């Protein structure tokens, strides 16, 4: 990791300005880096700002949403400073995105072929060359009989096949970074597995990086090298996948891990996180997780903790990181 990162995001803020009384703070103070060839994950409950972060990276935010401040450096260049025209050329060729619902992300009235070839800016001869290229892409993403299926419309595909077609379409312009927004959520479990493997393989084959957004810790474990846990629009904890699952250092992460079956809590009762995530339009000054946190003390309601680096590469946002000893006990208690 001595190489400079492929993507570096610094202090990104994105708010929905619905009215002067109602400002939804979807993304606040988000900083992270993605290196070449790795998969970086965002996990959290729905509505915690993972997808909003993802869309901000491609500047696909529509009013009343607005990126207020921050830097998004791709290969050292701040894409927030690109002109609309330059941004249009940046999308797809450098960074591309796949969506949660393949059915709604594909144009219902265009053939699959046209939805792949229309982004192939680098091909001169659109007719034959583009067709061959598209067939090849479909074969790569595992669609049988690609020469035939390419002439069909999205509704003639099954959910899993639609997801594959969407991946093919997104990879058409050869991006260096693929954003995957809940790519498996809408699919059956068996197909989820296939799609996960497919994305992993394509990442290695095409030597690209992937940012994965999901609420599913199982998917994270299968795909990510490093990840960030998000809550109420902020990153709460960020580290490599192994550390996160074995030595989490944030109460929210413990709670998340405690709510799903893992090897660590085998035989124990699963504990759902009580309460609901806060309303992003109406955040209290303190730590957003305070109302649901088991270890909260009075300072948590008054002051928002800074995100701090505990060990190289392991970041966490909590007032009591220094009391690590007492926490550790709790964690181990959890894990036994």
């Amino acid at each position, binding site marked *: 990791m001595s190489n400079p990162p492929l993507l570096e995001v610094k202090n990104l803020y994105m708010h929905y300005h619905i009215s002067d009384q109602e400002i939804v703070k979807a993304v606040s103070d988000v900083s992270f880096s993605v290196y070449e060839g790795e998969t970086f994950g965002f996990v959290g409950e729905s509505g915690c700002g993972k997808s909003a972060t993802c869309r901000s990276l491609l500047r696909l935010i529509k009013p009343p949403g607005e990126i207020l401040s921050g830097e998004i450096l791709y290969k050292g260049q701040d894409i927030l400073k690109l002109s609309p025209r330059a941004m249009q050329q940046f999308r*797809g060729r450098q960074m591309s995105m796949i969506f949660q619902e393949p059915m709604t992300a594909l144009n219902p009235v265009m053939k699959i072929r046209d939805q792949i070839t229309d982004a192939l800016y680098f091909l001169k001869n659109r007719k034959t060359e583009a067709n061959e290229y598209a067939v090849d892409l479909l074969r790569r993403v595992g669609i049988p009989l690609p020469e035939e299926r390419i002439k069909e419309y999205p509704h003639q595909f099954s959910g899993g096949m639609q997801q594959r077609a969407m991946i093919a379409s997104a990879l058409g312009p050869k991006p260096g970074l693929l954003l995957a927004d809940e790519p498996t959520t809408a699919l059956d479990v068996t197909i989820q597995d296939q799609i996960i493997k497919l994305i992993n393989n394509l990442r290695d084959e095409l030597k690209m990086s992937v940012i994965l957004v999901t609420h599913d810790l199982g998917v994270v474990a299968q795909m990510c090298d490093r990840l960030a846990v998000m809550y109420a629009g902020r990153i709460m904890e960020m580290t490599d996948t192994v550390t996160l699952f074995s030595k989490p250092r944030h109460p929210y992460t413990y709670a998340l891990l405690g709510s799903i079956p893992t090897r660590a809590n085998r035989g124990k009762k699963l504990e759902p996180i009580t309460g609901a995530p806060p309303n992003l339009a109406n955040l209290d000054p303190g730590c957003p997780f305070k109302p649901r946190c088991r270890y909260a003390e009075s300072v948590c309601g008054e002051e928002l903790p800074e995100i701090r680096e505990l060990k190289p590469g392991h970041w966490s946002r909590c007032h009591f990181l220094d009391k690590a000893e007492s926490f550790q006990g709790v964690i181990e208690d959890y894990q036994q």
Partner: protein
Amino acid sequence: MSHINYIVKRLLQILPVLLCVTILIFAMMRLIPGDPARIQLGENAREAAVQALRLKMGLDKPLVTQYFIFMKQLITLDLGTSLLYKIPVVKLISQRIGLTFSLAGVSMFFIILISFPLGYIAGMNKDKAADQTIRVISLAAISMPSFWLGILLMLFFGVHLRLLPVGGWGSTPLEHLKGLLLPGIASAMVTAALVMRNLRNSIVDINSLDYVDFARSKGLMDKTVKKNYIMRNALLSAVTLLSMRFAWLLGGSVVIETVFALPGIGKLLVDSIFARDYPVVQSVVFLLSFSVLVINLITDVLYAFLDPRIRL
């Protein structure tokens, strides 16, 4: 191949409706008070002629038989003679139907000319000043009687500016076209406003859908996204509405042709009602409803071609 099957299937579905339409028109003619044969021939007809027609229509036979005779006349286009104009009804209608369809065509032209750009602008600028302005204008257009608008246009362009004829149809194609402009605009307004709203709402909905974001995320040019992703989908529902409104335009010709003194089948219908020229009335009503059915058929087929999701 499947398209042909589909067309045949839709044709077969129309037949029972068409049958019911003829029953309704038959019932309508029998419901008019008085002797049906005398109604067909008029008050001043000679008794002998009325008697002859009575036999021909089978008025001494049961209603079912009378209906079959009526159907036979309809299919062989033996629709009788106009009492008012003293010429066969078929000939009378064929002289006038061109005007009514041209008028509907001119209206359609204006509808598309007005509604597509404005609906697009409103939809792409949701809740901004342009959208609000267009919304108010369309609201006013929907609430206005088209014949009043027609008279105002006539007043301004015909009487005041003397640019276009106050009414009438002229004799050369250019005069025909000039004569159709004002009535075309007048009858276009309501539909233009409706189509505009429809387009605006579709575009607003589509803009929030993932496939537009996905298209942008692939780095497509803005122009391509708007054309292939937004407009192509927004136009789908507009096409259905447009064709439904084509039928409406045919009905509206009744009033607008009277305002502008245009000799089309709408005015023919009104004149025939006043003159108690019932052979013409029944034929025009049948013709109009038949046209509606054919237009609906064409729309369905067109829609099936445009929207691949329709199962054929």
